[in-house]
């Protein structure tokens, strides 16, 4: 497939051979909602927040290739409603207590929920029982907040070369596992400065001692929506 152009909500966007719809959109500065996608890593295609309508069909923008003349619908009422429902499912599936989460205001899950006007979770809360791993001197793994995006898995494996994390189990039993004989973070070679510590879109991987460096109310997404500033990790957390 050669280079060409697609349209996103009527706007012409060029792409180069091999790019996905998401990559073409990012290069053109068009925001498509996403959580498990990160420009530096191979696509995972799991969260489905990036669902767009391309040529009349629902596809994940982070995995679907751009093809010449493709008409993509991104910000329609219908897609917004679908994204809101996905966000609500993510919220009730975990234990997301924004009022005392260190990442509140910098959290991409929360920011997308603000963006799509989610005022309530709609579905019954699942209140799962998940383990917190506080064994590591520098890092806490708060699985209650994990959305299984596998960004830490990819960063640790592909950039840090350590393979500290992986997702095990299927469906409702899927969980983030730590790759050591004991299953504890303290027994891995995870260390400050690892890329895996800077990619979590929610508050599941917390580096100790800096959670409240910037007060609530002055954080990334407190005043401006995520479609304007993008999925970012604030400087205070890098």
């Amino acid at each position: 497939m050669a280079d060409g152009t697609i349209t996103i909500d009527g706007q012409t966007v060029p792409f180069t051979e091999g790019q996905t719809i998401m990559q073409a959109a990012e290069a053109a500065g068009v925001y498509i909602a996403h959580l498990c996608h990160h420009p530096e890593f191979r696509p995972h295609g799991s969260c489905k927040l990036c669902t767009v309508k391309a040529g009349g069909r629902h596809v994940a923008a982070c995995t679907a290739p751009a093809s010449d003349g493709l008409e993509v619908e991104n910000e329609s009422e219908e897609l917004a409603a679908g994204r809101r429902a996905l966000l609500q499912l993510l919220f009730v599936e975990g234990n997301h207590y924004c009022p005392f989460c260190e990442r509140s205001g910098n959290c991409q899950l929360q920011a997308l929920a603000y963006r799509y006007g989610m005022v309530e979770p709609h579905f019954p809360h699942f209140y799962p029982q998940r383990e917190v791993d506080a064994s590591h001197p520098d890092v806490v793994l708060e699985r209650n907040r994990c959305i299984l995006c596998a960004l830490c898995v990819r960063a640790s494996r592909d950039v840090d070369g350590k393979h500290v994390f992986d997702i095990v189990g299927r469906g409702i039993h899927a969980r983030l596992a730590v790759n050591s004989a004991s299953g504890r973070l303290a027994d891995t070679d995870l260390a400050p400065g690892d890329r895996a510590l800077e990619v979590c879109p929610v508050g599941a991987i917390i580096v100790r001692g800096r959670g409240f460096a910037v007060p609530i109310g002055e954080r990334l997404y407190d005043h401006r929506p995520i479609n304007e500033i993008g999925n970012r990790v604030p400087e205070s957390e890098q």
Partner: protein
Amino acid sequence: MSKIRIATTSLAGCFGCHMSILDIDEKLFDLAAVAEFDRSPITDIKQCGPCDIGIVEGGVCNAENVEVLREFRRHCKVLIACGACAITGGIPALRNGVPLVECMAEAYLDGIGTENPSRTVPNDPELPLLLNRVHPIQEVVRIDHFLPGCPPPAEAIWQAISDLLAGREPTLSYTQLHYD
């Protein structure tokens, strides 16, 4: 024109949302000009009568919460879930991962600093029975509007009330919508 009636209550909450209601400050005068409070910690009326707006803080953690919530739903034309605990269960719902028996033992028998020579857990028939789990209020009754936040900012509360007074659907702006 007769005044509209507003009822408010705190279920499994910390009264922080009620503090935020009071934080609308001088707007309370505007409100008092057009509205009267029915059952509310502000009036100390114990039973809710027919009301236009009900504002509920806190989730549902015991049998009395369920009864009060149903009373509010019966009497209020419009019911607002106010704050994180009402909408998600909030901090009280942290106990949902721990069996009730263990919670009680920790609180009354074995917790650090607990002094309880009789080694009994309070069990008076007057005490409302705890539910096994804390629930958001929309899992128990139908809710018309939601004001997230811990607590919702006073501006958001005033926005919702003034929208309703003007006959509009309450809508929060980006900075009024917060979960923390």
